[in-house]
């Protein structure tokens, strides 16, 4: 069965520093992968999505993610973190049809001034 692991429950970075949030997936076949973000007091929002093709995908607010089949990974990156990036980030893989998503437990990002 498919699964998603986000090994870091919490990550703290300084504002302006670079960021990488890790995501490992388990899926038989070609995965469709997503990153969702939940800002304080808001619902989950799509940050970016990967469909088979270019392994590096661009998202909103300067985020990008790189798919690696050999490593079964889909890590999220940002070159320079802003305080407004303080949020919980969820990695997900589509499981079956109907946009059913299997999520990871999330990584809580804190940004220090």
């Amino acid at each position, binding site marked *: 069965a498919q699964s*998603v692991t986000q090994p870091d*429950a919490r990550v703290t970075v300084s504002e302006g520093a670079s960021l990488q949030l890790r995501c490992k997936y388990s899926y038989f076949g070609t995965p*469709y992968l*997503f990153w*969702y973000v939940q800002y304080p*007091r*808001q*619902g*989950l*929002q*799509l940050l970016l*999505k990967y*469909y088979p093709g270019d392994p590096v995908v661009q998202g909103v607010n300067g985020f990008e993610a790189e798919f690696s089949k050999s490593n079964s990974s889909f890590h999220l990156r940002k070159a320079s973190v802003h305080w407004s990036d303080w949020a919980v980030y*969820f990695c997900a893989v*589509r499981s079956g*049809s*109907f*946009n*059913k*998503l*299997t*999520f*990871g*437990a*999330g990584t809580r990002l804190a940004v220090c001034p």
Partner: protein
Amino acid sequence: DTTVKQNPRYKLARVGKPVNLICSQTMNHDTMYWYQKKPNQAPKLLLFYYDKILNREADTFEKFQSSRPNNSFCSLYIGSAGLEYSAMYLCASSRGTANERLFFGHGTKLSVL
């Protein structure tokens, strides 16, 4: 309007009593989902409606019921709440059936006492 609305934001229930949670969307999406989210755990898909057809996940089949009286509304029903039902319940909707983004509501936090 690209919002999914959930009512109420907070719900207190007694053990053994029924609980009904409400979700609505005005985007004319044909699919609506219910996820359960517990602290430090991944959001877990409980069930979803595609048009008028209800699909329940195998491991939660008997625990949750749902109805969708029209395209805009969807409810989640717990017949007899137990302590283990305490969680955040997330409603989402999407257009189509493949690789479309999900739009999430803020969630309803259910506390069972």
